[in-house]
């Protein structure tokens, strides 16, 4: 009688296996018997390679918050950027979304009606403190859902030593695309490995492309929110980029080069000029560089790219009041300034902007702080943008080989997105 018993236990095990695979995660935070409400907070990790983890910053904020608000417990989960999207997706699919999420985009959650409007989860004082351009980027169909968390902006970055070596004046940076051609040609003659860096690898190709598109008054969408990826202006932009690539003025095969690698090459003195961002400041402390406005087709580009990361509050747990208490605390000036300084990011509130502008330690950040209020953002409120952006990242690099084919394919994909 031993064998059937064994078989039976194996059968139950297989059954248990199947069951555990279907079981859903438990619901979001709850109120326990002692009157303490737990809210779940999922945040992205801005530290790199385990250095300077975001966990430490948030633990500090949360323990200070919990001392002031003993009735609220914040359950923190910090996830690195590579896994964040997938893990949050899994939480949402299982109906297990956090109360507060801090990540790269909000539009698709807002479109599905999963989010509280920002006015429900922020006190008027906090809500009124955001830099207007950023607050506006969080608005979808007339209601603000995305609460900006940190921002960043791009500027044209020049290696002064290489410029002088090529007989160029770093105090007079290129203003037009023709100037860029002249400077890059001179840098190439002076033996610079990569005169002009255009990282169109999938890491940040959507940003790099957008910056050059804006130099020719182009972009991903028109004023009405319709995709215009293969517009004549964008075609002209990529034809220009292609001519730089063909002339050997850029790195070889930009479609396969990621921003991180190229910025490392810049820091080691191999790149003459590229679109830089404040995150590089740490690496460039000892280097002689200039930050300049973006060169455009006929003159300095009308705008530059601003990027922002977002905080959003999910309706599912029903913890509106607790979320508001926590967000009002987390957005206090001292907290946000500390975070921005720690990771070389730009602020999103006016008080933090003022604080950083007068901070003598943050001189290097000044050019970015000045352009931030005028920066242009991705079509962040469009729920199809996350999907379109993912496709742009992998495909737009090939537009420097065949602009027409690549941009037409992306336009077609963008129009179909969300269907």
């Amino acid at each position, binding site marked *: *009688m031993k*064998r*059937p018993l064994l*078989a*039976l236990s*194996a*059968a139950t*095990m*297989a*059954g248990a*296996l*199947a069951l555990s*695979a279907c079981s859903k995660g438990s619901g979001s935070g709850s109120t326990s018997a002692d009157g303490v409400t737990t809210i779940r907070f999922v945040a992205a990790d801005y530290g790199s390679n385990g250095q300077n983890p975001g966990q430490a910053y948030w633990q500090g904020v949360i323990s200070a918050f919990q001392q002031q608000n003993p009735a609220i417990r914040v359950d923190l989960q910090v996830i690195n950027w590579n896994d964040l999207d997938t893990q949050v*997706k*899994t939480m*949402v*699919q299982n109906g297990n979304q956090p109360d507060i999420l801090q990540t790269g985009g909000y539009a*698709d*959650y807002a*479109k*599905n009606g*999963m989010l509280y409007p920002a006015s429900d989860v922020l006190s008027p004082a906090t809500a009124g403190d955001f830099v207007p351009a950023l607050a506006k980027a969080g608005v979808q169909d007339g209601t603000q859902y995305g609460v900006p968390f940190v921002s960043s902006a791009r500027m044209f970055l020049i290696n002064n030593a290489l410029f002088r070596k090529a007989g160029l004046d770093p105090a007079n940076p290129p203003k037009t695309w023709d100037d860029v051609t002249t400077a890059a040609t001179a840098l190439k003659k002076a033996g610079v*490995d990569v005169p002009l860096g255009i990282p169109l*690898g*999938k890491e940040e190709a959507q940003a790099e492309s957008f910056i050059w598109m804006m130099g020719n008054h182009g972009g991903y969408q028109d004023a009405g929110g319709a995709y215009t990826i293969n517009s004549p202006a964008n075609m002209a932009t990529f034809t220009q980029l292609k001519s730089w690539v063909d002339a050997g003025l850029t*790195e*070889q*095969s930009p*479609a*396969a*080069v990621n921003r991180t*690698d190229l910025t490392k*090459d810049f820091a080691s003195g*191999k790149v003459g000029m590229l679109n830089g961002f404040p995150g590089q400041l740490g690496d460039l402390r000892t280097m002689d560089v200039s930050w300049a406005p973006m060169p455009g087709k006929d003159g300095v580009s009308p705008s530059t790219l601003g990027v922002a990361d977002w905080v959003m509050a999910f309706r599912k747990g029903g913890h509106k009041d607790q979320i508001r208490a926590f967000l009002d605390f987390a957005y206090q000036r001292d907290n946000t300034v500390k975070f921005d300084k720690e990771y070389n990011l730009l602020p999103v509130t006016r008080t933090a902007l003022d604080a950083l502008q007068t901070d003598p330690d943050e001189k290097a950040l000044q050019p970015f702080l000045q352009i931030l209020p005028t920066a242009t953002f991705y079509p962040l409120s469009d*729920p199809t943008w*996350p*999907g*379109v952006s*993912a*496709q742009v990242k*992998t*495909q737009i*690099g*090939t537009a420097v080989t065949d602009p027409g084919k*690549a941009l037409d*394919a992306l336009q077609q994909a963008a129009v*179909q*997105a*969300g*269907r």
Partner: protein
Amino acid sequence: MSRAPTPRSLLRRLGPVPWLAPAVLLILAVVVWPVAEMVRTSLRRIDTTGTDHGPAGLVKYRKLFADPRLPEVLGWTVVWTVAVVGLTMLLSLALAQLFNQNFPGRRIARWALIAPWAASVLMTAIGFRWMLDQVAGVLNRLLLDLGLIDRPQAWLGDAAHAKPWLVFVAVFVSLPFTTYTLLAGLQTVPAEVYEAARVDGASRWQIYRKVTLPLLRPAFLVALVVNLINVFNSFPVIWGMTQGGPNADTATTTVFMYMLRGYDVAESAAMSVVNFAVVIVMVLLFLKVSRWNEEESR
């Protein structure tokens, strides 16, 4: 054994069911259920947050087949599978022959062959990626110092350069398993057969073709099929070196499926279904070939 007749007769009535049930349940849970779920997902409309917006019919399949990149991806998948498996089998036949000879240091050589197998494939791929890097790569340094090239090349920057390197690395990591399988096959060939062939005056090439190869057939077939399915489904080599890029120029269907997952889970599932169908066809072909093999040897 047991004196209670009731449970015994109950068991007898159930026949083989209690013995088969665990295996059947396990297959249902880990094979059939995921496949059903995969097909179901490919017929839904799922947005980037993972929210399901209801049935989509065959929309995702139409979108997939309308993707201008798909024909090239399919073509490259065929070339990739045939080239990697073909080269692996050829080189392994030679290597197995070599390792079957007695020579000083054979033990060490055999151990050395295990190295690419013992190392994680993803690690090997990432290692090669950096060796081939335009700025930091050791290959460019070597070729520059030898004066063979005059400026550093981005070896993985475009499909024409990347594809041969991908095949090279995939062959490199497939060789150990294949060689050892063939070596095991070679060692089952009895020495008398060779002796008899030599007595009959067969040349070395004749012995290899008429004696070794036919007797090696079972091991060869096993190695071939395992490699075919492995290489067709291979993910780490391509992902570690090029991530299927630029665009999808070096993506096989498996890698392409993973790329689609980034923005459309349902379309990605549709690609999986197509992939699954191809594997089924490959297995059916194998079954047919191996049966033909049995009949011939009878």
